[in-house]
């Protein structure tokens, strides 16, 4: 119980004193996860839309695959990615291992299935009259797709938020391919893992609270975005 109280106290202390290291790891967490989520949305939404609206052979299998990928353990993704970008791996010459970009790629792999799966269900939930209305008003295929996606915007934003939530809290992958390098690839979650392993529970909790607050602020931002576009 003490840990929790000390943790909250420490959290405030760290924020108010604008602790540089805490600032740096929070900033890295947000940047990496935001970039990964943005890339995953750019890739995943059109894909989800196409799968959701078209009918093709093997569609159900594909949907099932994406739904399963959502539950992929983060450490496993980290391990697989590591084997690819390690020096002795096929993509070794790019020197990606232990860089923030490796973490972005890993989180991209984690976020995309979620965004695809949720976009598929959002698309299937669109009133069929939207498409009809768009077409009857003279929209071409691209414009029709945009109109349909716009009608589903609340669900789509939820999909993005879900994707972001999955990656900002993950540890296994970031640890594996980032290396938890102080000042370079140490994120909030990997720092928490480190401090916990050291036995520094109060500090770990403090970081945890800060992470919570950062995620909270991001969600508020999304909510605001929803408001102005609605």
């Amino acid at each position, binding site marked *: 119980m003490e840990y929790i109280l000390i943790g909250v106290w420490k959290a405030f202390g760290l924020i108010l004193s604008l602790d540089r290291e805490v600032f740096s790891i929070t900033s890295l967490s947000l940047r990496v996860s935001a970039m990964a989520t943005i890339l995953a949305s750019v890739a995943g939404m059109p894909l989800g839309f196409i799968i959701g609206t078209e009918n093709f052979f093997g569609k159900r299998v594909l949907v099932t695959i994406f739904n399963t990928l959502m539950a992929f353990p983060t450490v496993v993704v980290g391990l697989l990615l590591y084997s690819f970008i390690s020096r002795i791996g096929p993509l070794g010459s790019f020197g990606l291992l232990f860089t923030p970009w490796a973490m972005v790629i890993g989180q991209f792999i984690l976020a995309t299935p979620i965004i695809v799966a949720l976009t598929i269900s959002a698309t299937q939930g669109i*009133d069929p*009259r*939207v498409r*009809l*209305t768009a*077409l*009857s*008003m*003279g*929209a*071409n295929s691209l*414009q029709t797709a945009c*109109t349909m996606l*716009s*009608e589903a915007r609340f669900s789509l934003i939820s999909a993005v938020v879900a994707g972001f939530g999955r990656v900002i809290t993950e540890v296994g992958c970031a640890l594996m391919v980032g290396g938890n390098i102080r000042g370079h690839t140490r994120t909030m979650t990997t720092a928490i893992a480190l401090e916990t392993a050291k036995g520094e529970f109060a500090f770990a909790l403090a970081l945890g609270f800060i992470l919570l607050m950062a995620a909270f602020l991001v969600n508020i931002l999304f909510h605001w975005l929803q408001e102005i576009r*609605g």
Partner: protein
Amino acid sequence: MEKQLFTIEGLTKRYNGKTILDIPYLVIKKGLIYGVMGPNGSGKTTLLSILSLLDRSTSGRICFDGVEINGRGNDDSTLRRQMAMVLQNPFLLSSTVYKNVAYGLKIRRWKKKKQKQKIEECLDMVGLVGFERRKVHELSGGEAQRVAIARGIAVSPKVLFLDEPTANIDKSNMETLEKIIQELNDKYKTTIIFTTHDLRQAYHLADEIILLSEGKVSKILSRDELKDYP
């Protein structure tokens, strides 16, 4: 030939083994108001869908203002942009009245300033001045329908289709609607084609009435002839 908006030859529509439409010959003249009448299942809505390019015929030749349109279905947005359809339960995109009326213009890439002008004009015509910022879910049934009409006429279509426009509205709204249709036809010479159950209504508004029965045209009456009809 000049005055023909639609020329229909040998039109059939079959679905699941059933013949829904069978029209050997039909001409829709420019600048007139047509009422398509018939009991449920007579094929009224299907005819409208095919003429508005939202559905494909099984066979037959249709010319729209001199251009053959049969079999094109939804591929050709340029043709569809010359038409506008107001569905039975008009579907409005979830945002404001203004954005809905602007939809067709946005698709046609009108400049914002010109859009504003046109939208004001159309809202005035349907009697919804001042409704610009209203959210769609705040509207009554009659108001929603008028927004859908405003949306349709904003794009200055050559033909305006209305599917059962008076089916779900009360008397005062009905009168407003009739006024709008009349004004549209008088002022802009827009060809109007609507479907209805209500004979009195058809009599009131239409220049010509097409009677459909089991997919076939049983009779075409002009206004004068209607007077003699029981």
